[in-house]
């Protein structure tokens, strides 16, 4: 049993697997070139062309989807911003309202206090005036009584302006002493 393949091949009696048969190479060229032409004409344009077209379409769809998503995100962000703005505005409005209300309250309070004080003052002035008026009338009454009494005592009617002046002056001195004491 001869295990040496090379020896057998070299011997030439057995079929060789090492030789080059140019005829077979020629047929290889022919077959491969015919195959290439057939494939280039009937197989590759549809397969590669449509695959490329489909890939382009998928790419376009992906691009479009990305564009739309970006747009959506932009809109969402814009709306979020607007919502935030609206919220801030509402808050500032509420704060302003509160502030205004506070101011109005303080204002009214102040005004009410001032009015009240004014009322009190006026009342006091009224009272004072009435009191003065009463004192005045009382004093006049007192002068009249005193003159009448003195006239009775002296026996004649004391009604001369000179007398009246005397008494009034006296009473005034008394009143100023009393008034200082009363005040």
């Amino acid at each position: 049993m001869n295990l040496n393949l090379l020896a057998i091949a070299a011997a030439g009696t057995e079929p060789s697997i090492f030789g080059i048969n140019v005829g077979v190479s020629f047929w290889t060229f022919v077959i491969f070139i015919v195959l290439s032409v057939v494939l280039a004409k009937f197989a590759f344009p549809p397969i590669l062309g449509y695959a490329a077209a489909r890939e382009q379409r998928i790419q376009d769809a992906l691009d479009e989807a990305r564009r739309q998503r970006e747009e959506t995100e932009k809109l969402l962000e814009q709306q979020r911003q607007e919502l935030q703005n609206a919220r801030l505005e509402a808050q500032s409005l509420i704060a302003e309202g509160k502030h205004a209300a506070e101011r109005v309250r303080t204002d009214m309070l102040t005004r009410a206090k001032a009015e009240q004080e004014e009322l009190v003052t006026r009342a006091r002035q009224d009272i004072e005036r009435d009191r003065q008026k009463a004192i005045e009338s009382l004093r006049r009454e007192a002068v009249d009584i005193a003159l009448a009494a003195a006239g009775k005592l002296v026996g004649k009617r004391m009604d001369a302006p000179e007398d009246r002046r005397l008494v009034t002056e006296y009473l005034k001195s008394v009143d100023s002493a009393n008034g200082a004491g009363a005040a």
Partner: protein
Amino acid sequence: MMPSVLPMIRAAASEEGGEFDIPSMILHHLADANEWATPFGVIPLPQFAPVQVGPLTIDFSITKHVLFMMFAAFLVALMLILAARDAKRSREAGAERGPKGAANVVEAMVLFVRDEIALKNIGHGGERFVPYIVSVFFFILFCNLLGLVPWGASPTGNLSVTMALALITFVIVEVTGMRELGTKGYLETIFYAPHGMHWAMRLPMYVIMTPVEFLGKLTKPFALTIRLYANMTAGHAVVLALTGLMVIAVSANALWVIPAPLIMAVAIMVLEIFVAFLQAYIFAMLSAVFIGLIRHAH
């Protein structure tokens, strides 16, 4: 079934001169021939008288390997054209439908070869070479696979075939180089010295590097030739040797031996299917790499 087969095998084994000769059996199966053994008998193939072309005497006979190349080319064309028809139909059916079923598998393979082998290695503007790379991939793949079919043969286990295929790649590479680099650029891929180098240094550079660059051009197709041929031949030789062991076991009445070579033969056969794809991939890949290399030379 087994008992009726055994005497046949014994008879066939003893027919060849009493002793079953594994090497000649292997050679007989691997070598090209002018006949094709089928289950229905040996079919003789057309033989033509050798033609004298210059110094060469060329035998244009349709040998077994030529026949199987035709089968392979036919199957590749059939498969891709059917896939193309489906692609066309799906195109007409509506823009949104992709290929279906088997056509989808074919298209996926074609697109894999286009994207992962051709475009990735050839680089920008490599679309022009995609048809060649796809054709050579499928043609070699089918040639490889036909050798695994019973009564089949691998044309890619023939040096004449792999040499011719490697030469096609070689011509495409060199023509691409001439077209894309121009005369001067192309000559620089053979006669090369770095720009701006002093002439006194350039001279030895040319003397040393020119044979290297020139050999580099020739070793590429040579490596393609030998790699594909050796891979296909070696795998088949191993399967045939293990099969021969089984025949010897039968004729020696040592049936208990059979499972060992059987299991190994089946395992090698499965490996061969992988190798068939791998070698087609490598040939296409290297073709693309060589085209890419010369397009981006220097």
